[in-house]
């Protein structure tokens, strides 16, 4: 096989988390609702109904543009994209064409060799979703609950060079969308959908080959597999002296291959023109600056800060910044912990360890847990100061998650406070030794494992609350011949 370079561009659609649809007052959250109950004259395209643009969706799009380092255009124009399909009630989709909201941005990804690589963003624009078709054996049913949901479209320049880079880009983009709180970006639920354009050229060449559009990429895994497959398919074709045809391919998860959907030789003419029902959007620079000022710290910046300020390892930091809620929680817990003289690394250990296990076990979001950062910091302090044992700490954490009660209260009520009191333990150890002369003798005869037996007895007597360090030194002292 000759040496080829893959040229990949991505188009991502993500559902925005607005309260209402893009152009009407219907709820934007109809997940699980009865079909065709979340509809109105506008999203059903009844005659005479008119769209009104969702201001929040425009705001979210500009925010995404800012986070992706885009230029925000002062004027943006909604356009009609004309085509017929039953899931498109108006016979056109309101989208943006020659005047999108955001253009010329970039994001950085970590390429497989570990270097930072800049991926240019061509445009970010706003449009409306179609309805959902259900293809039955004899007929097709359409549910318009989804019709008109706000969608953001993010298009890169063809700057990606491998399936892994494509995956990195998408994961980074998902994190950004989630950080901004503008989309759940959940690929499995269809809240984030992507398409890729792939072409090959001989290594070292500057000319672009024929590009193939790959659709139906519904997971990160699918993206990587489909692109790898498609690159190999094109390479084989080129090696065989064939021409790559300009087609639209769909990834078939079941067959593990891309399948031709339609030829693109005669490209479809969407007859875009400015949407006359909506005035052009005027984006005031002052408003853009307000939105810029309100941008949260982005994950890459945050990761660097965690390493530099908190002394975390890059890996720990990247785990913590992956989800903005977790990062926020970590920061707030750290602030509370520092007041208690607990260093950030300990907090990071707790969150990435026991805390994550708990989240996973409960299959929940961090916001579902009833544990405040201050409460967690207090629990960490109790364990770190050895007021309770590490195993008691886990018990307390679970109860905190279940009840939302503060750790101190739980510790008191369940009497989990560790006994490190010299006098108390001295008495217990003394009594034990007095009650077991045979074992004492055995120990003194050289069988040192008896020490462990005594330790077990102390723990049994104290229901595990005894400080093992203190007990050990007491036993050693008293058992000496």
């Amino acid at each position, binding site marked *: 096989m000759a040496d080829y370079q893959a040229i990949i561009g991505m188009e991502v659609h993500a559902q925005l988390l607005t309260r209402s649809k893009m152009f009407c007052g219907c709820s934007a959250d109809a997940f699980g609702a009865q079909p065709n109950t979340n509809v109105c*004259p506008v999203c*059903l*395209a*009844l*005659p*005479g*109904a*008119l*769209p*009104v*643009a969702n201001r929040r969706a425009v705001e979210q799009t500009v925010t995404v543009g800012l986070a992706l380092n885009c230029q925000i255009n002062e004027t943006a124009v909604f356009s*009609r994209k*004309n085509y*017929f399909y*039953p899931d498109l*009630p*108006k*016979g*056109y989709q309101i989208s943006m064409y020659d005047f999108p909201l955001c253009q010329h941005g970039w994001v950085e990804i970590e390429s497989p060799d570990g270097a930072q690589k800049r991926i240019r963003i061509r445009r970010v624009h706003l449009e409306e979703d179609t309805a959902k078709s259900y293809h039955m054996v004899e007929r097709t049913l*359409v549910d318009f609950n989804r019709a008109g949901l706000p969608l953001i479209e993010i298009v890169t320049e063809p700057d990606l060079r491998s399936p892994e880079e494509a995956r990195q880009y998408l994961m980074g983009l998902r994190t950004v969308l989630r950080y901004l709180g503008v989309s759940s970006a959940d690929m499995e639920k269809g809240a984030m959908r992507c398409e890729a354009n792939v072409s090959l050229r001989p290594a070292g060449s500057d000319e672009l080959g024929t590009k193939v559009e790959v659709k139906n990429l519904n997971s990160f895994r699918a993206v990587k597999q489909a692109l790898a497959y498609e690159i190999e398919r094109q390479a084989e074709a080129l090696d065989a002296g064939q021409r790559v045809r300009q087609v639209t391919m769909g990834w078939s998860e079941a067959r593990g291959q891309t399948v031709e959907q339609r030829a693109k030789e005669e490209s479809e*003419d969407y*007859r*875009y*023109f400015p949407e*006359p*029902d*909506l*005035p052009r959007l005027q984006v005031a620079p002052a408003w853009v600056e307000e939105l810029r000022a309100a941008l949260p710290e982005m994950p890459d910046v945050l990761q660097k800060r965690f390493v530099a300020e908190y002394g975390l390892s890059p890996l720990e930091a990247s785990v913590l910044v992956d989800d903005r809620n977790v990062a926020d929680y970590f920061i707030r817990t750290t602030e509370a912990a520092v007041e208690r003289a607990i260093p950030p690394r300990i907090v990071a250990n707790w969150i990435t360890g026991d805390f994550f296990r708990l989240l996973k076990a409960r299959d929940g979001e961090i916001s579902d847990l009833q544990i405040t950062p201050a409460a967690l910091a207090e629990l960490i302090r109790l364990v770190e100061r050895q007021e309770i044992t590490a195993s008691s700490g886990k018990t307390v954490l679970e109860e905190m998650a279940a009840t939302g009660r503060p750790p101190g209260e739980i510790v008191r009520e369940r009497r989990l406070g560790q006994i490190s009191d010299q006098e108390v333990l001295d008495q217990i150890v003394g009594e034990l030794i007095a009650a077991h002369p045979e074992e004492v003798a055995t120990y003194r005869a050289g069988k040192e494992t008896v020490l462990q037996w005594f330790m077990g007895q102390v723990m049994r007597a104290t229901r595990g609350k005894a400080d093992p360090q203190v007990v050990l030194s007491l036993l050693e002292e008293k058992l000496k011949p």
Partner: protein
Amino acid sequence: MSDLARLTIQEARSLLSRGEISSVELTQAVLDRILDLDNAVKAYLTLAPDLALEQAAEADRNRANGGASPLLGIPLAIKDIISLEGLPATCGSRILEDYVPPYSATVVEKLRAAGAVILGKTNTDEFAMGSSTENSAYFTTRNPWDLDRVPGGSSGGSAAAVAAGMALGALGSDTGGSVRQPAALCGVVGIKPTYGRVSRWGLVAFASSLDQIGPLARTVSDAALLLGTIAGYDPRDSTSVDVPVAGYAAALTGDVRGLRIGVPQEYFIAGIQPEVESAVRAAVETLAGLGAEVVDVSLPHTEYALPAYYLIAPAEASANLARFDGMRYGLSLPADDLWETYRRTRGQGFGPEVKRRIMLGTYALSAGYYDAYYLKASQVRTLIRRDFDQALEHCDVLLAPTAPTTAFKVGEIAGDPLQMYLQDIFTLALSLAGLPGLSLPCGFDGEGLPIGLQVMGRAFDEATVLRVAHAYEQATEWHRRAPALDGSEGTRGG
């Protein structure tokens, strides 16, 4: 007592408020007249007598309880392209033959809130595309002044109903002249408001950047009252504009002294019926006699209005009409595959003029033609708007004929789309500019057919347009003439 049906809205209001008539009597009189005449005139597509009488009774009860809203108990007609919950809105098309909107247009809500009684829905060229109602899929409305002639269009049903005393007033819609031209041909007053003045919510779209709903009535004062009721910003229509609505009644002073009236030379061209030109020129003289200053002006890009309009309007229409696909409502003719379903539904649902415009518009927007057609037309539109802006910088209003001829015979030009398009030659430019225009009677030709005078004004300055029209109306008697439909009347009192 069928005379009641010939009352103006203002006359009816005073009789109602003095308790001399009830709305039920008035509405019944109009309904009786419709039953007498509409077999011949064919203005209504849907008549709703039960609903109307119910609303009239409600208005009477309301008045008995002290209600005095401006249109309380006044029976009106609505063009069938405007949605009214529970009544069909066919838009003159087969494709919407069975469609009943589940919601009402903002203008309908406003009329109802003002107490109006709705008689029914009036005929229109299919989707408002035409100038004669001959493009209605159902029937052609006849001109009350001569039943062999068309009433103009596309709001021909509304204009004919008002002229024939089958409604005290009506709503139409004007995209390129569809209120003004039928008003001229039927001898009534019709207003095309500034684009954005009246909400389009519930108006079935023909060309979204041009469509405006406007009132038709027998006098300027009545039209002003209706306009004042329906005008205003509507958050459901993003193209409606938040400019306060003037008190139009206060503008009707009868005084035009100090106003400057421009007469655009491009509106007096070859092909205009000589009696139309002389009537309009005489009207200009009348206003000069009332103290207005008259100046000649030029709107140099006027000749490009028609081609620009017939690119922009069909382009928008081609998209606006895409929703009629047989999937959710309206005519549906299922076939073996999706594309055949579309072909059959739309092929049989739309009439020839609508198909012609969908094809024109689709072509104008196609890749490779967009720049030469749609984009160029949009640029021409800007130049046309600039012409008006310049002329209206030093003129308060412009005067011109509304239509080049009086009413033509049914079938006379129906086979010649270009001849039909020329009917709107004097109204298209103002529509492209988005400015307000009014047509009112200014004379009759040798065959006794009414001639329309067009008063054009500045954006959102309907008040001045109304003021000039009203002053002219007060100084003349044209509006007192009524068509001799039942053989007994030729003129009207009041």
